[in-house]
């Protein structure tokens, strides 16, 4: 029997920290990770000694990366482990931390994500089952095929997809942690070098390096450590699913998103209309359109018109990817899902500065990953 997160005691995000996402440098990964963890500890105003458990979302660093980094905070002997779940590695690490606190296994857990780009092949290429594509169909072409079908079915245009990038680059321009911090016009996006189908370079996320950290705590720990309860954001639900054989086989990420989001929203006891901010997996611009419709935020075929009318802007009906999303904030893999949680916590606390979506009370974080896997969290401010 599956028990939802809400059936256990409350778990809260009490501290957030990031190292800026950036192009790969010579900086060793512990420098990235330690900056994010120290910022999160400072944000929660607690010390490293209060942390009782660590889940480290990382897909590319290799074996045994966690203690080699965190020992520099001083050895306390607490359990630490790496969590690899493709693009959802960080989201999965956060889920495990939230469940560990909610179920009472510990009172304070750290979810941290750190990665640097690597050329290591995916295990999926080593299953012994080959396809006919011969490496010619990479993710951007998968999404270009889905984009062409969407245009054919709904009369959408390349401009409709480009507007996602315009919005998210605009948001990222105000985020000091974002890899891309430049406002881009519709023409900038459309005239950028074409990559595949209607997708231009600025509609494909940059994969660089970075780190993100989130501290999860119970009410008991919040009281004991005298953490400011007004800055604590409750984790209302956590859903994780994997792909099955779908009737609509090509856009499996959207089908998986539909099911996983429905579960997360139901467990939180809300409807899509209750959401104020959403951070979603916009690795490619067209994905934002697909997933908003799969989540029930927009009706099928209507997301482009809502986007054009400003419904998804900061200050609109629901702010989509106020951080800049994967497109502008970047997608360093392990950190990405934890960075989403940090952005939603910042928004719900009302601490997002010029990126602040007014009166944000309810947020949703969504990642899909190769596999396909999907992880969705709902966070709320009481």
């Amino acid at each position, binding site marked *: 029997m599956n028990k939802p997160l809400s059936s256990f005691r409350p778990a809260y995000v009490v501290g957030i920290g990031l190292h800026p996402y950036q192009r790969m440098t010579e900086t060793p990964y512990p420098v990235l990770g330690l900056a994010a963890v120290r910022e999160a500890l400072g944000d929660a105003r607690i010390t490293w000694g209060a942390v009782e458990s660590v889940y480290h979302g990382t897909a590319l660093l290799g074996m045994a990366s966690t203690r080699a980094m965190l020992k520099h905070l001083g050895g306390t002997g607490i359990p630490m482990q790496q969590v690899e779940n493709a693009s959802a590695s960080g989201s999965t690490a956060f889920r495990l931390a939230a469940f560990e606190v909610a179920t009472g296994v510990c009172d304070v857990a750290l979810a941290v994500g750190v990665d640097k780009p690597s050329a290591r092949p995916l295990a999926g290429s080593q299953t012994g*089952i*080959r396809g*006919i594509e011969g490496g010619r169909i990479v993710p951007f072409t998968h999404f270009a*095929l889905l984009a062409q*079908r969407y245009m*054919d079915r709904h009369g959408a245009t390349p401009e409709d997809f480009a507007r996602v990038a315009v919005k998210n680059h605009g948001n990222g321009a105000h985020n000091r942690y974002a890899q891309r911090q430049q406002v881009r016009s519709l023409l900038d996006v459309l005239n950028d*070098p*074409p990559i*595949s189908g209607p997708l231009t370079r600025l509609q494909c996320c940059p994969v660089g390096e970075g780190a993100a950290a989130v501290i999860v705590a119970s009410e008991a720990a919040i009281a004991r450590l005298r953490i400011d309860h007004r800055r604590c954001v409750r984790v209302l639900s956590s859903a994780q699913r994997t792909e099955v*054989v779908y009737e609509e086989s090509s856009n499996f990420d959207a089908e998986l998103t539909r099911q996983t989001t429905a579960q997360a929203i139901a467990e939180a006891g809300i409807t899509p209309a209750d959401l104020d901010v959403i951070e979603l997996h916009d690795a490619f611009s067209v994905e934002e359109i697909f997933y908003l419709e799969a989540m029930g935020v927009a009706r099928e075929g209507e997301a482009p018109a809502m986007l054009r009318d400003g419904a998804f802007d900061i200050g609109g009906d629901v702010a989509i990817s106020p951080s800049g999303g994967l497109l502008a904030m970047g997608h360093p893999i392990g950190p990405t899902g934890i960075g989403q949680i940090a952005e939603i916590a910042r928004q719900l606390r009302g601490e997002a500065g010029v990126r602040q979506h007014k009166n944000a009370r309810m947020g949703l974080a969504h990642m899909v990953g190769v596999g396909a896997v999907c992880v969705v969290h709902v966070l709320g401010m009481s």
Partner: protein
Amino acid sequence: MNQELSHPDLYRSDGGDSVVLLGMSCAACGHVAFPRQHYGCEKCGAAGDALRNVDLHSTGSLASYATVHMHQAKTIAAPFVIGEISLDAGPTVRATMVEATDADMEIGARVAGRLFPAPSSVDATSSKFELRFCLLEGRS
């Protein structure tokens, strides 16, 4: 005609112009899939004798297409056109199209697989053949 194929584990000539894809079907649940594997049915988990080899004719309709303008691998020259094909036999496959541009492509158009000399072996004495899909005359 004795053609050496780039991927004889994935497809073969149907004896005429066209190509059959080497697929599988599950006797337990009816799921038809490509490529062929014997690890277990992705839909119901059946294994062993339940998994049957079936030949899937390569005719179908174009479900989508995309011109790929750049590719990271230096061995793959861009641009080229990828098609998503709904095979009449059931599964959806994605493959390289013969056409150099997508100008004449239309979702729903009839397509089929053909064997063409692999670009890398055009000048070699014994050229290998590989699968490409192409638009058929007389659209749907």
